[in-house]
C-alpha cells in the first residue's frame, strides 16, 4: 500500500510569515499534485509536478518535487488569511490505465490576521 505522509498536520501562523509543508512517501510516483480544500467544498487543484527536482511557482506558492519523486514540499511566502485551508498532496501511480490518486491526510493551515 502506498502512503503519503504530510507534516505538520496543523499549522497556525501570523499573517506575513513564511511556511513550508511537507509530503513524504517511501514509494515513487509518476507525478504529484497539491490541492487546497476549504470547509464544505471539494479539493481544488493547485499544481501538478512530474519531473524529479522540478520547481513550480504559483504567485506566493512554490512547489518542489524531490529528485527521487518520492517527496514534495509547498512553501508559502508572506502568508495571508486567504491562504487558510486544508492542503492535500496526492500521488499518481502510473500503469493499467487508471488515474487513481493516493492522498495524504493533509495540513490544516490557519493564517491569523
Amino acid at each position, binding site marked *: 500500500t502506498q502512503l*503519503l505522509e504530510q507534516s505538520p498536520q496543523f499549522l497556525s501562523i501570523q499573517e506575513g510569515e513564511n511556511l513550508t509543508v511537507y509530503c513524504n512517501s517511501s514509494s515513487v510516483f509518476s*507525478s504529484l*499534485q497539491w490541492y487546497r480544500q476549504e470547509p*464544505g*467544498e*471539494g*479539493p*481544488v*487543484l493547485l499544481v*501538478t509536478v512530474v519531473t524529479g527536482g522540478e520547481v513550480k511557482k504559483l504567485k506566493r506558492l512554490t512547489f518542489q518535487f524531490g529528485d527521487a519523486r518520492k517527496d514534495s514540499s509547498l512553501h508559502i511566502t508572506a502568508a495571508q488569511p486567504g491562504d487558510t485551508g486544508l492542503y*492535500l498532496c*496526492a500521488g*499518481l501511480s502510473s500503469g*493499467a*490505465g*487508471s*488515474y*487513481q*490518486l*493516493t*492522498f*495524504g*491526510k*493533509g495540513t490544516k493551515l490557519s493564517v491569523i490576521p
Partner: protein
Amino acid sequence: GAGVSQTPSNKVTEKGKYVELRCDPISGHTALYWYRQSLGQGPEFLIYFQGTGAADDSGLPNDRFFAVRPEGSVSTLKIQRTERGDSAVYLCASSDRGPSGYTFGSGTRLTVV
C-alpha cells in the same frame, strides 16, 4: 455545466437503508471518479469510469457499494444496507485529460444514524 454537481449535498439515513448519490460531471469529460473522505482524512479512491465502463473499481470497500454511469455522463453511487462506518463525504471528480484536469464537486455528506 460549469462545474461538477453533486446531489444531494447532505443526506441523513438510518442504518440498514439504501442510498443513492448523484454526480453530474463537466460536460464532455469522459473520465469520472468517486472518492470518499472521512473526518480528518484525505480522500480515498473508490472507482474510476472511462465513458460508460468502470475501468478501475479496486477501491470499492465491499459488495454493498456499486456505481453506474449508463450513458457516459451522470453517475450514481449506490450503497446498500448502510452502516454507521459509511458516514463520510463522498466526492466526485471529472476530467478530460487524466489527473492534470481533475475537477472535484463539493461532495455529498452522508450521515448514517
